[in-house]
């Protein structure tokens, strides 16, 4: 596949690995923010090929993982008690709430459906005019245009039976929260490529300047990831801290203005609770008040008591890059993808799931 296969070329990967070994002379810790990049690094065995001097820590960039437990409980309630067609992405359906996941609710008879795109939910709403259709709209900046677009389409089509339960989070405020945490020790960042494809790269220059950290907007394939890491390490070795764009084939500096226009039409910036981390000011998007008819939270005015997290799950520390998944005493024991204690073990982008599926367990245990 063009624009994909060539970034998986083993020879080129080998050249990058060698160049990294030549370049790194001191120990550096770099965070990749996006869960897709975490999976790319673990699945392709890149973590094992990096020089010992370069340590990758994994960031909070898994929207499913940071969706508050309370919102999952709300979604479950809507599916079970309000007779709605509750739909979302596959990952979200499997994340445990305080008592059950949406998949459990489905097994109990609720009408829960896994969709590939929020636009399919619009089709469902048109085909089922006598039912309420709720799309559990999770995601970072990358997914916001699609979720917003579903609301724009619903409005244009005059649909009265469609709404979204929005759980939208923003990357830059979370990066700052991680940097400012006293327990983290990160020297450079791979910024999330597809987030920047929407938002552009301008937000990251001031961050690099303020915290004196290299920031490199990076793609997802092995060659992309290694090039991004090399660009960060070269800056660190030279004492530089600037914004660079490894992923310019997809990320123009200005991002996608049309996508941002649609986001702005539907969402407004709000404080947002991140599961495992806490509330981060100005770190989320909620449906604008004038579109309340399309906001499931307002439409159904569901009030669910806040439930506590599992005391054995250290997801917050994993999401901030303070602990590696296998440093959790429950990893692979009480917590597995089939019976997860926390969201990072469920999502296809969660760091715990990545380590569980793609690392050698015996190596991890012996480490």
């Amino acid at each position, binding site marked *: 596949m*063009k624009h994909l296969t060539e970034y998986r070329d083993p020879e080129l990967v080998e050249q990058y690995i060698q160049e990294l070994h030549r370049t790194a002379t001191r120990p550096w810790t770099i965070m990749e923010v996006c869960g897709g990049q975490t999976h790319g690094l673990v699945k392709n065995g890149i973590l094992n090929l990096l020089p010992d001097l370069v340590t990758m820590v994994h960031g909070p960039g898994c929207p499913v993982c940071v969706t508050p437990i309370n919102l999952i409980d709300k979604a479950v309630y809507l599916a079970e008690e309000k007779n709605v067609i509750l739909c979302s992405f596959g990952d979200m359906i499997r994340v445990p709430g305080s008592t059950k996941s949406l998949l459990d609710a489905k097994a109990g008879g609720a009408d829960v459906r896994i969709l590939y795109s929020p636009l399919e939910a619009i089709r469902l709403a048109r085909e089922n005019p006598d039912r309420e259709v709720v799309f559990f709209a*999770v995601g970072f900046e990358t997914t916001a*245009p699609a979720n917003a677009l579903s609301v724009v389409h619903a409005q244009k*089509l005059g649909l009265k039976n469609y709404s979204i339960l929005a759980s939208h989070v923003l990357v830059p405020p979370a990066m700052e929260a991680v940097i400012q945490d006293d327990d983290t020790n990160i020297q450079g960042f791979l910024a999330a490529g597809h987030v920047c494809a929407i938002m552009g790269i301008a937000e990251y220059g001031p961050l690099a300047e303020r915290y004196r950290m290299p920031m490199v907007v990076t793609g997802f394939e092995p060659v992309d990831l290694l090039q991004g890491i090399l660009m960060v390490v070269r800056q660190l070795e030279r004492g530089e801290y600037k914004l660079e764009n490894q992923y310019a*084939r997809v990320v123009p500096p200005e991002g996608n203005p049309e996508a941002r226009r649609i986001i702005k039409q539907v969402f407004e910036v709000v404080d947002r609770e991140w599961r495992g981390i806490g509330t981060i000011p100005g770190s989320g998007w909620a449906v604008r008040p004038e579109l309340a008819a399309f906001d499931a939270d307002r439409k159904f005015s569901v009030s669910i008591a806040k439930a506590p997290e599992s005391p054995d799950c250290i997801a917050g520390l994993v999401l901030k890059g303070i602990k590696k998944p296998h440093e959790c005493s429950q990893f692979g024991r009480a917590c597995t993808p089939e019976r997860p204690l926390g969201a990072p073990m469920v999502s296809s*982008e969660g760091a715990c799931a990545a380590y569980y599926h793609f690392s050698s367990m015996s190596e991890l245990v012996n480490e």
Partner: protein
Amino acid sequence: MCLAIPGKIKSIDYQYDGLVRMARVNFGGILKEASLDMVPNAKVGDYVLVHVGVAISIVNEEEAEKTFAYLREIGDLDELTESSQIDRYH
């Protein structure tokens, strides 16, 4: 979650009562529909990056080429820096 895959636009048509400009996109032989609302300039033959059924970016072919020139470029750059340092010492 932020997974997006590049594919080539095979054809374009309008759906939902003409409201939505949709493309049929070829992903290595698999055809899927994608909304072109976010990339109004996209045309047949372009490679677009598709995320949850919505094209979010048109792949810039020129920039794509640069990725493969990077190692050679930094090699040349490092040689230049080294030789200028040698010049300084002599």
